[in-house]
């Protein structure tokens, strides 16, 4: 039995999203612990999970994450969508009538 390591397009996009979120947090001058406190999370481990590209910011938390990172929520959500669901992002914001 071998536990396999995995990589896919979606995983790569999540990693890119994680890197972008990490940069935003650094720009906001927050540590992972401080961001977790702002988001009222008990542990900061989920911040790390997302920044390392293994988790997504849950939809219901996007606004809070955006505000905590000093971002305007709708543009923050749009950028996240471009990583998490690029096809939906293309249809909503890139395809012209």
């Amino acid at each position, binding site marked *: 039995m071998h536990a396999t390591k995995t990589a896919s397009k979606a995983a790569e996009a999540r990693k890119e999203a994680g890197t972008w979120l990490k940069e935003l947090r650094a720009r906001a001058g927050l540590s992972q612990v401080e961001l977790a406190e702002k988001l009222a999370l008990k*542990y900061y481990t989920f911040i790390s999970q997302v920044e390392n590209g293994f988790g997504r910011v849950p939809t219901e938390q996007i606004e809070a994450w955006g505000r905590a990172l000093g971002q305007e929520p709708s543009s923050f959500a749009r950028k996240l969508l471009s990583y998490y669901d690029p096809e939906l992002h293309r249809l909503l914001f890139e395809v012209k009538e």
Partner: protein
Amino acid sequence: MNVVSFPGRDLPHDWQRGEMNALLAACGESLDKGTVAGWEIGETERGDPQLYLLGPAPDHECVLCVSRLGRQYVLEDGEGRILCEHDAIGSLSDQVRHALRHKKAAIIARATVVWLAIKETIEERMEPILGEPMELLSHVAPQLVAVI
């Protein structure tokens, strides 16, 4: 019981071999059945080790995440919900096993709902198509019999 031994490679991020063997043994059944397709290890900004159990292709979403903060282990799902906090790796492994079984049951339930919805849609669309020839046949058949 499935025992998944941790492959002999370097263990960065402060994970101990015993911990990894216990955690991977807990997800052995799910690895066999494909609920878990793989795993990765990482660490937090403070250097606390994390183990990510990943779901099937194509997305390989994080199914569960185990973190060790000091002497305490924290088990979270892929959306940051805390499932368990414990300081004993044995108890945590039991929770990992339990969470993965629950996850599998949820996947089966979702698949069943989707299958029933598809079945209902097909039946709704097929009924008028199948109904018309039967109606036509019921009109034509007596006339055919009369001719014969």
